[in-house]
């Protein structure tokens, strides 16, 4: 436990010293929710909608940090630590290298939760946002999205042969997902064809799930997204555990 605490403390400091996660996971979502709030205010999501545009976008914005941590941060840090032989160094100590990976997962989960709290607070304080559906459903969905996104990151970081390839793979997954899954650019304003393409992205499904949860929409439409998220998490984590390389 002492090792875990010390590692968590040190890795948090190092991560904050790096600034990237602070910008992409903490600042970006907050800025976005402010822009969306200022531009759309409390306009209805569409004519006759029971919820506002901002309500509709809330869930999507909260996934930006998950996406930044899971798809970008995690693969890069795993492949970097492998490349620098830090994982190997842990193999010749009484502590398993699994611990340092667990610490990374916790750190990215913390970033996501911080971001969620901040985005909600900003939305609530400045734009009168409030969650219409169930917090319980929302948090469960949020956790599921986090698990499945992080599993993609573990997969990419676990099997990429070097940091460069990990970086390229992470970018190829991160940017399309950030832009087209609805996390930044609202899914609802996309043309129908683009929406169809976006539906392939796992995060799109995740955001649909979140939306159903916090808007309190009927839960019968969420079976498909839930299945997608679970299957994705199972497949990605099994492959990464099976093919993980310490060096």
């Amino acid at each position, binding site marked *: 436990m002492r090792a875990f605490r010390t590692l968590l403390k040190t890795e948090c400091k*190092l991560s904050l*010293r790096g600034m990237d996660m602070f910008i992409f996971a903490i600042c970006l979502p907050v800025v976005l929710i402010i822009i969306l709030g200022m531009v759309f205010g409390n306009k209805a999501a569409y004519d006759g909608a029971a919820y506002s545009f901002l309500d509709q976008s809330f869930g999507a914005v909260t996934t930006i940090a998950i996406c930044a941590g899971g798809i970008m941060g995690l693969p890069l840090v795993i492949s970097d630590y492998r490349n*620098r032989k830090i994982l190997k160094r842990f193999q*010749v*100590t009484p*502590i398993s290298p699994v611990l340092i990976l667990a610490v990374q997962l916790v750190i990215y989960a913390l970033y996501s939760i911080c971001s969620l709290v901040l985005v909600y607070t900003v939305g609530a304080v400045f734009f009168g946002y409030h969650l219409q559906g169930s917090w319980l459903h929302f948090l469960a969905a949020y956790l599921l999205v986090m698990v499945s996104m992080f599993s993609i990151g573990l997969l990419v970081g676990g099997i990429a042969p070097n940091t460069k390839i990990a970086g390229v793979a992470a970018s190829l997954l991160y940017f399309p997902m950030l832009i087209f899954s609805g996390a930044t650019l609202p899914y609802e304003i996309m043309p129908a064809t683009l929406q169809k393409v976006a539906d392939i992205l796992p995060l799109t499904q995740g955001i649909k799930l979140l939306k159903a949860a916090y808007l309190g929409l009927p839960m019968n439409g969420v079976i498909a997204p839930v299945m997608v998220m679970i299957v994705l998490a199972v497949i990605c984590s099994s492959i990464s555990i099976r093919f993980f390389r310490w*060096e």
Partner: protein
Amino acid sequence: MESVIRVEKLCKSYEQITAVKNVDISIRPGEVFGLLGANGAGKSSTMECILGTKKQDSGTVSILGMNPQKGRKKLFEQVGVQFQEANYQDKIRVEELCELTASLYKSPLDYVKLLSQFGLSDKRKSQVSELSGGQKQRLFIALALIPNPKVVFLDELTTGLDARARRDVWKSLSDLKEKGLTILLTSHFMDEVEALCDKIMILKKGESIFCGTVQEAIAASPYEKFEDAYLWFTDEEERENESISDAS
């Protein structure tokens, strides 16, 4: 007295290439053992098989009577390791790296004392990447000593250091030797090996071509200086090739 490190018939190959072949090593308590050989001779592979970071194809390894793979948790409480590559996180400070390393062990030594012992007290707040080559190597020895080990493994400790820094590192190692620490090291510098090692093994293409003391190595060669003797041991085949090409 029983061996601290015992290796029997160690073999390791990567696909078609044989990296280690039938290597036997026995190191007694308090001994400094040097593993020598050209790049690619199998030094690092041997060391990694002994440490258990690579799995040998055949042969047995025991450190302090334990199997390094099965008894990893218990064994590495008592073993310090410094790898050839600098393996620390980007932007980490000296103090943070020490604190982190200390947290991995049940009863670590006080790293503040170790840092001052290695003349690094004023560098505690510096980033590791900003240290000079000699300071880094001294830090890595200090890190390897944090567990208060009975055995330390040092891989190419002084590569890339200037003469002064190398002497400083030797001095630190001699002190440790006096305290009865068992050390396994690899090195490319024969003066260093002469100054520090009680016993050496010369590897060539994964096989041991000499094992004994430095004096024995000199005696077994037609030369008087250890470096010449070492080259004589490792170069034999090349010399033959040269004479063949000269003749043609």
